[in-house]
């Protein structure tokens, strides 16, 4: 009788092998999604093709996907920094909300400032608000060993309700017919679009910040310390690395990046603050960060793909009337299969006689 055993690889899987595993995982998840379409009576191949066309099939589609990828990328870059240290920041959603609130406060308070002063001030306010929101769970963890997963999660609910409190109350636009939204930002407070495309300059922010984060881990001492602590906390502490301070640092950075995404979303895409800017980018970011194995470039690719998935799902709804929840199914399946595929990076299956 043949028996399959798992054995540890002597050296990690090659790049080609990794890609192969990733590809098989993606194909498997698409097959399973196709099966679900089939069960519902939708032709599966048509369904998947329609999905991809909607996501990447035309210039518009690609622009739309990039546009949607911007906030996901920034949030994801943020959570990836925390994940490097094995700090589970589930709170990008709340930090995003706080960032949007901070930016809006500046935009509404100083609408007449010139663009060159107002936009940086908004970024600063967003980063401080988001970073500060991220610092609270870090300090609680450092001082009291409070579990950061739960605190960040609860703080998401609080942040969203705080945002609602503001737009339903003190910040409500008097001309909005009572609907919960702030007045539209002044021209100076809006991040513009690139040329004739529908993509805003936030894309450039993403590129710069992505390079900075990459450089932080590659070249700075602190970046190295974060990685070292993340790999092995006990050993790093033994070596005298300031673990507790690093926890606070990564959470602040993480929150600041999510806050930056909130700023872009309020300024560039909605031009005001309203509750509907909260559409779960912060949670998608976690998925993205993990799929990309925390690497900035891969995060860029993964956020583009997942944003495309979100956009493509609208197409498959419109053409084939598949419920919106289908997007969640594919997302979940991709994540699970890729996660399971991770086994093959460190192990291999050996067939042998029992």
């Amino acid at each position, binding site marked *: 009788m043949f028996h399959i055993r*798992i*054995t*540890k690889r002597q050296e990690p899987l090659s790049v080609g092998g990794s890609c192969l595993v990733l590809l098989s995982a993606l194909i498997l998840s698409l097959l399973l999604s196709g099966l*679900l379409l089939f069960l*519902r009576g939708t032709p599966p191949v048509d369904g998947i093709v329609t999905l991809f066309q909607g996501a990447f099939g035309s210039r518009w589609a690609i622009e739309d996907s990039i546009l949607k990828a911007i906030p996901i990328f920034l949030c994801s870059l943020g959570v990836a920094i925390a994940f490097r240290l094995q700090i*589970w920041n*589930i709170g990008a959603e709340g930090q995003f909300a706080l960032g949007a609130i901070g930016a809006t406060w500046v935009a509404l308070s100083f609408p007449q400032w010139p663009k060159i002063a107002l936009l940086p001030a908004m970024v600063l306010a967003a980063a401080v608000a988001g970073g500060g929101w991220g610092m609270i769970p870090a300090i*609680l963890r450092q001082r*009291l*060993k*409070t*579990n950061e*997963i*739960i*605190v960040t*999660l*609860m*703080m998401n*609910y*609080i942040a969203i*309700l*705080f945002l*609602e*409190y503001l737009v*339903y*109350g003190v910040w409500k636009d008097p001309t909005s017919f009572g609907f919960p939204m702030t007045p539209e930002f002044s021209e100076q407070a809006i991040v513009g679009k690139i040329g004739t495309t529908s993509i805003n300059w936030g894309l450039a922010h993403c590129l710069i910040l992505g390079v900075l984060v990459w450089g932080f881990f590659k070249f700075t001492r602190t970046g190295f310390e974060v990685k070292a602590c993340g790999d092995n906390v006990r050993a790093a502490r033994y070596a005298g690395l300031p673990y507790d301070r690093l926890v606070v640092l990564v959470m602040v950075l993480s929150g600041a990046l999510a806050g930056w995404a909130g700023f872009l979303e309020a300024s560039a895409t909605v031009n005001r603050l309203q509750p509907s800017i909260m559409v779960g980018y912060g*949670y998608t970011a*976690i*998925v993205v960060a*993990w799929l990309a194995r925390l690497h900035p470039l891969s995060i860029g690719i993964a956020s583009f793909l997942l944003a495309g998935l979100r956009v493509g799902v609208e197409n498959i709804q419109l053409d084939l009337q598949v*419920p*919106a*929840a*289908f*997007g*969640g*199914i*594919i*997302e*979940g*399946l991709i*994540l*699970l299969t890729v*996660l*399971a*595929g*991770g*086994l093959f990076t*460190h*192990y291999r299956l050996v067939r042998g006689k029992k």
Partner: protein
Amino acid sequence: MEIITIIIPLLAAAVQSGTPILYATLGEIITEKSGVLNLGVEGAMIIGALAGFIVSRYTGSPVLGFFAAGIAGSFATSIHGVVCLWFQGNQVVSGLALTILGAGLANYLGTSYVGLSAPGFSPVAVPLLSSIPVLGPIFFKHDILVYISYCIPPVMCLFFTSTRFGLGLRAAGEYPAAATAAGLNVLAYRWFGILAGGFLMGLGGAYLSLAYTHLWTTNLTGGRGWIAVALVIFAFWRPGRAVLGAYLFGSVMALQLRLQALGTQLPSSILLMLPYVLTVFVLVMSSWRKKTNEEPAALGVNVEPAD
């Protein structure tokens, strides 16, 4: 208005709205005691809620629906088991994926059941006990699922402290290497933790679709699974404290609605924050006073396959 006429219904409501969270929290405790962190509670709950609703609707038997919900919950968490126990996937991420997948699946498969009703459980006052002043109306005028939930924590305590299997399960969560050396099959214990936990989470979901309301809609669980994850930590992994936590959360939920009904002038957003603020506060307070760490030592750490 007399204060007592407000307080008693408030506490009764706290028990009821705490019950689905209690089931899910107890489920997560079993799972975590075996060393597996499952953040997919929400996903397991919503799949259980849908399965319970569908089965009850087709068979006309809420009891069958209730069991089906448990089985569906186990099925959902078994995905987590496959990914983490067999494929060594990261438990945090796998749990999140389960949440996303579960909500997607339930909402996808449940579209055609929206706006329908299914037979469910109704309140039954317990003879004698329900006539005890104060305690009777608070604890003994509910549906049978609430009474079942009263029985689970003591059973779990006994299981953890006094049975061989329960001790083995805890060993798998505390010292998997030592447990393996002692000849225990750690993976089997962890599988049990995941499946039994999923069963309870599914029951928690069914409480929402078969007892609390008799309805199915998308996102029926509304974040209650996440609260359960938080309460496990609040409860120091003890079933008894989980009861306290679930009812405390339920009572704050019920309290904020009653404050509104009484005509308070506070904005509703601020009142709605209360349960979440309280959760953080309680978590902080309990970590403050607690010196020892009760978290299962190997929580979230996968057991590497033997070479």
